[in-house]
């Protein structure tokens, strides 16, 4: 009898840590000494060479690709700069570099960018973390997303370290500690790949799932708390901005509903010699179809790629319409205001634009949405089109009342540059300031961090900057 019990304990100690990892160790390279395969594969997220029809590992200027975005976000920092995401290892670089951090931002912006975040939250408290200024936290947050964000350093079990996800589950009356291993293979991603907002003065990171997680439910929640992200510079609409509801939309698609996890497609098993392990090169599965899709599907790489493109094409077709008519509605609304339309006259128009923009943004802000749940995306976009067009029907009536001849003349905003110029955004100035910041402030941050790392265990390790 006894030997069986011994053997079971053995079974639980499957791995021997070369160097035990400290509870708050933020540096991947330290973890990597114990788990070289996972670490080496994770380093590949630095790659920027893969390009698919709509996504890939390189950065893509989304404002140049879809200039209507500039108009739709007029009055918000997104109109200055918005790109396709890159791999996890770029997270720190990219948030430092984006022109969106040229405007004052709260420390909350760091939450999903670094393994230093759990360390700091533990140190100064969650609410205090969010409360600070983004720039003030700079010296503390220098390691990009990594092992600490998903793993328990003692057992290497998957775990959640971002409070917002746990809190959102609690408010929905769900117990995240009951999650199965398969669910955890998506929930670690749901710490970050979700729609969020900054609640109240304390800029407390909050996931708006209290009423459910499709576009309609989340809109109801935001309406109920009267949330507004910004007032549109042209149409004066109180706008909701959606950010990457990747997890939410995934749950509305067939793969999510059949229990296929994010990790099944974005982190499939890899065989290296006689060893199999989870490939930590988190990227577009189209760069690795053989080990992801083809585990479950027997079709050729070409067919599977085409399946993805077909779905993205159909959704993009509707997204282009939604985007275009939304931009037109904003521009026409401005003409109405300029010609003396009253708040009363415009009330219904703004309501429609708010609803249309929310739907369009929820559908398109997740870069995987159009594959993760294409039908849901098309449904939301269809509603968006209906609403922005309805706004334009009302605007046409308003023009009649204001004696504005129709069709009204609209500015040429057909490229990113033209659109930004029309909005009088001083792009050259923003870029100059940013370069200044990268040259002067950032090196200071890195210096302080290097000093801190020196004092930590295993200080012989270089900082992440080396890669």
């Amino acid at each position: 009898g006894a030997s069986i019990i011994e053997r079971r304990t053995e079974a639980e100690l499957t791995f021997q840590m070369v160097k035990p990892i400290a509870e708050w160790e933020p540096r991947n390279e330290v973890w990597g000494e114990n788990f070289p395969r996972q670490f080496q594969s994770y380093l590949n997220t630095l790659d920027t060479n893969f390009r698919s029809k709509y996504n890939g590992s390189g950065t893509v200027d989304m404002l140049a690709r879809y200039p209507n975005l500039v108009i739709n976000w007029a009055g918000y920092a997104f109109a200055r700069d918005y790109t396709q995401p890159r791999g996890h290892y770029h997270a720190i670089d990219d948030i430092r570099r984006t022109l969106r951090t040229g405007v004052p931002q709260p420390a909350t912006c760091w939450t999903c960018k670094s393994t230093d975040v759990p360390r700091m939250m533990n140190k100064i408290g969650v609410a205090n973390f969010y409360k600070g200024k983004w720039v003030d936290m700079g010296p503390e947050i220098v390691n990009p997303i990594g092992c600490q964000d998903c793993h328990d350093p003692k057992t290497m079990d998957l775990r959640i370290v971002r409070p917002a996800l746990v809190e959102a589950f609690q408010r929905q009356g769900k117990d995240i500690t009951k999650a199965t291993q398969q669910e955890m293979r998506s929930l670690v991603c749901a710490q970050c790949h979700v729609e969020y907002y900054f609640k109240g003065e304390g800029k407390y990171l909050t996931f708006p799932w209290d009423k459910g997680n499709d576009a309609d439910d989340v809109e109801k929640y935001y309406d109920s708390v009267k949330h507004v992200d910004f007032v549109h510079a042209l149409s004066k609409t109180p706008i909701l901005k959606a950010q990457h509801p990747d997890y939410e939309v995934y749950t509305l698609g067939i793969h999510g509903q059949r229990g296929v996890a994010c990790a099944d497609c974005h982190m499939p098993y890899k065989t290296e010699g006689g060893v199999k392990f989870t490939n930590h090169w988190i990227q577009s599965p189209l760069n690795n179809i053989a080990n992801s899709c083809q585990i479950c599907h027997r079709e050729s790489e070409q067919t599977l790629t085409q399946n993805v493109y077909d779905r993205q094409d159909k959704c993009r077709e509707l997204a282009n319409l939604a985007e275009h008519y939304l931009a037109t509605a904003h521009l026409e609304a401005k003409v109405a205001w300029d010609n003396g339309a009253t708040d009363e006259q415009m009330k219904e128009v703004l309501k429609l634009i708010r609803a249309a923009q929310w739907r369009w943004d929820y559908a398109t802000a997740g870069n995987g949405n159009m594959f993760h749940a294409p039908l849901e995306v098309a449904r939301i976009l269809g509603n968006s089109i209906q609403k922005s067009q309805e706004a334009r029907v009302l605007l046409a009536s308003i023009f009649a009342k204001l004696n504005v001849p129709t069709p009204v003349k609209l500015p040429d905003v057909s490229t990113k540059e033209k659109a930004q110029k029309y909005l009088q955004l001083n792009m050259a100035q923003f870029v100059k300031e940013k370069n200044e910041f990268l040259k002067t402030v950032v090196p200071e941050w890195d210096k302080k961090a290097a000093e801190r790392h020196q004092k930590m265990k295993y200080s012989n390790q270089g900082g992440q900057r080396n890669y």
Partner: protein
Amino acid sequence: MKIRNFFDSIMPPRNWHLTVVVTLGIFFGLGFLVFHIGNGTSYLSDNPATCINCHVMTAQYVTWARSSHARVASCNDCHVPHNNIVNTYLFKAQDGLRHSTIFTMRAEPEVIRIKEAGINVVEENCIRCHQHQVFKTKIRHAVTLDERTNNNGRFCWDCHRETPHGRVTSLSSFPYARTPKLGKVMPEWLRKFTEEENKK
């Protein structure tokens, strides 16, 4: 149905009769202790997580868990007979006892290989579920039948080599594989913090 036929249909294969009688005896008698401690009772469950109470099964568990079949077939769907309920439990009892014993004695090989009896059971089970895809009028797969009819020794997984465990399944092939345990889903500070919050 004739009574005779009924008995035939529930009897395990002839060459197992002795094993079955002995197994039954041990199963209901002394063997219970070993069986219980060694988690042998998990053999009666259909929950795959219970199979990997033995770490030697981790390789099979994690490969299965990442296969297309994880969603649709548990271990027992493939590894025990499903032609009738009595056979199902006899097979489970016999296997459970043997595996528990080998495990306890540390006699397991580095690379586990499926046994003849097990092979037939699995093959039958592939066919049980995929009947319609390997049935002749669905021409897509006519090849399978010919191969099997001519008895040239090919099993489904001779072609479908990655279904579901793949070719790399040695004990040391999965150095840090995580198998499900009710672990801690979040660090202590976060658990305390969110618990406090919840009280408010």
